């Protein structure tokens, strides 16, 4: 009989550990279609509670249950951000129990729709006689694929230009945001002189934290784009010009990147930033100086963002019907106002701004008014950022490299090639299928 020593045992245990590591790496599930599960009178709502909205979500759910006594809504913590909700939903597609309603972001909805895992809502909406014309058109149409809508807008946001009014005053600037990025460049030396060496003129989120989202404003401002439809256009001279502008801002000491500019801005270390309207509530509350908000520089160059709510394709029809009933309630004019006022996200219904409570709120909170007035100037994002898998992360990585000084044209040429390759290998054959 061979010796079975402690070392032999440890070796075997190590091998088992190695095997377990590979097996548990997140890919050990067979691609199957989820079975649905769930109950027909309990609506399971998977949310990441965008903008710390759990209390207000619970408040809306309570009102829904009171209005529909035969239905219950189970609010599930499905992650801390949109990406985690998508991961949980993916896991459920591979065999788990599917939710009835799931939060899908501007970036995550498309892959689910393309792979037929979200229900097209048009027929359901028509059967339930729900009028969609009251949804803000730009937001409603963000979820359109082949003339079908796969989600309804929920926690929708845009970036805003936030600035420290005290610094603006000290620099002798008018109390407003820059008209365009060329004007900002003329302001930057004055702001730097007024801010002093220990403060930063502008801070933006880095490439791992949505720089690719807000940078679209600069790109569009210079006449460029990440893509035209599905054709990547990073090497377009105007896109390269925008990249060079970003690089020069950093090189000249006017720009820094960080994980999250909000704490630095509210602490008074940073003069201005582009951040989501969803940050408005927290920034206004925490800042010890007067906060100014303005449209993003340029006219009509503001990207939309945030998330909507969708219904899984592979659940029974009666569950879909109840899910739609809840979504309609969650996003009706009254509740979008409740949600907006609690979080800073934008109302997704046109009629919401005419409600007396919203009018009163906007009168008291002029910064929230800025976001609403900017809404008609928004523009749907470029396909290669929001619709290509990994688009945001890919572009963010390139922008980080540009800010660190790498050649703009070379980085953008690489992004063109990578984006095209992803489109060809993952999207092209499925479009129109």
């Amino acid at each position, binding site marked *: 009989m061979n010796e079975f020593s402690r070392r032999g045992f*440890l*070796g075997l245990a190590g091998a088992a550990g190695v095997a377990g590591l590979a097996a*548990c790496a997140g*890919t*050990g*599930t*067979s691609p199957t279609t989820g079975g649905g599960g769930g109950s027909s009178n309990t609506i399971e709502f998977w949310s990441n509670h965008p903008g710390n909205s759990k209390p207000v979500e619970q408040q809306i759910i309570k009102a829904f249950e009171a209005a529909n006594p035969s239905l219950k809504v189970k609010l599930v913590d499905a992650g801390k951000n949109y990406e985690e909700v998508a991961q949980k939903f*993916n896991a459920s597609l591979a065999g788990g129990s599917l939710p009835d309603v799931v939060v899908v972001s501007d970036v995550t909805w498309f892959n689910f729709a393309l792979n037929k895992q979200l229900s097209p809502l048009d027929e359901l909406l028509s059967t339930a006689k729900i009028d969609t014309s009251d949804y803000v058109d730009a937001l409603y149409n963000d979820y359109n694929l082949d003339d079908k809508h796969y989600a309804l807008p929920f926690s929708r946001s845009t970036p805003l230009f936030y600035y420290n009014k005290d610094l603006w005053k000290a620099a002798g600037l008018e109390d407003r945001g820059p008209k365009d990025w060329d004007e900002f460049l003329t302001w930057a030396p004055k702001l730097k002189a007024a801010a002093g060496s220990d403060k930063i003129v502008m801070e933006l989120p880095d490439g*791992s934290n949505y720089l690719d989202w807000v940078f679209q404003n600069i790109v569009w401002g210079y006449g460029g784009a990440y893509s035209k439809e599905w054709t990547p256009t990073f090497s377009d001279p105007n896109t390269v010009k925008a990249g060079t502008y970003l690089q020069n801002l950093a090189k000249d000491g006017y720009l820094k990147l960080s994980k999250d500019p909000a704490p630095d801005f509210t602490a008074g270390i940073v003069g201005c930033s582009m951040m989501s309207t969803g940050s408005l509530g927290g920034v206004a509350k925490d800042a010890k100086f007067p906060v100014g908000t303005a449209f993003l520089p340029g006219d009509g160059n503001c990207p939309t963002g945030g998330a909507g709510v969708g219904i899984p394709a592979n659940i029974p029809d009666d569950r879909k019907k109840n899910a739609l009933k809840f979504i309609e309630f969650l996003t009706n004019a009254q509740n979008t106002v409740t949600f907006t006022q609690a979080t800073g996200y934008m109302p997704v219904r046109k009629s919401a701004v005419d409600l007396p409570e919203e009018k009163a709120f906007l009168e008291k909170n002029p910064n929230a008014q800025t976001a609403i007035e900017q809404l008609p100037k928004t523009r749907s994002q470029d396909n290669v950022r929001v619709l290509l898998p990994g688009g945001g992360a890919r572009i963010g990585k390139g922008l980080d490299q540009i800010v660190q000084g790498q050649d703009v044209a070379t980085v953008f040429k690489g992004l063109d090639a990578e984006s095209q390759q992803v489109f060809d290998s993952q999207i092209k054959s499925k479009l129109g299928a």
Partner: protein
Amino acid sequence: MQSSVTQPQSATPGSGGPPPEVGPPPRRSSGRAWEWSLAALLLLPNLVLLIVFTYRPLLDNIRLSFTDWNISSPIANPVGLSNYIEWFGRDDTKIIVRNTLVFTVATVGISMAVGLGLALLLDQKLKGRNIVRSVVFAPFVISGAAIGIAFQFVFDPQFGLVRDLLARIGVASPDFYQQPGWALFMVTVTYIWKNLGYTFVIYLAALQGRRADLDEAAEIDGATAWTRFRRVLMPQLRPTTFFLSITVLLSSVQVFDIINVMTRGGPQGNGTTTLVYQVYQETFVNQRAGYGATVATVMFVILLAVTVVQVRFMDRGKQA
């Protein structure tokens, strides 16, 4: 283990051969069968769990690595070796393998060396050593995500503790979040701090179980402290060192929470991306579960090879 059962020599009746040797009575075959049955019964539950939750997914993972599976899709098309060819040919593979190597070597080496040092120190009869032992071990039981969040404040280039300490000696803080080298340094230090308690407590247990008489004998023979450490203590700690080298290696390679919370694999896209983080990125962010399975399979092969080398190395050490 050598069998202790002496094989009985059969004496053929009427052969006139030597009388049978007197020895322990032979075990009956039914007794042995019962032992095997008991062993199988005891092993079976774990074996079933291993097969269902480790080896079957492992094989499934290898199968998926030869497909183009999009994680949201019900269909996975076979693509042959193209995922592997892509992985070996991509520019970022070198960076990610280098990150994994640097992170793993640093975390395994430093946490074992410092853990041993602390165990030696706190094995002495020092005042308040139990409190210090608890303090050293405590971070190990805290979740990596919580530690990642806490350490963001330590390394924050605007508000962080490190910035404050460096400012006191007139040195500017590096931007730990935007410079890939510093970012990797940051997550490595954070991981070592979290896991030091593990190596410490295992080494401490081994030290407390060692033979003190050998050390005393060597001291009487005039061996220096260094010689006693190298020639007397370390050989006794060899099995513990081997155990730790495997378990710390495996846990270091698996690190995900700290990287995800602190850097999300950045800056510049893959500044702190390790192989396991790449599996996550490709599978869940880029939706390429087939390609993610390829990276996981490559990682499995690399780790298996490293583990085999470790086992061989220890066996050779035993024979030497």
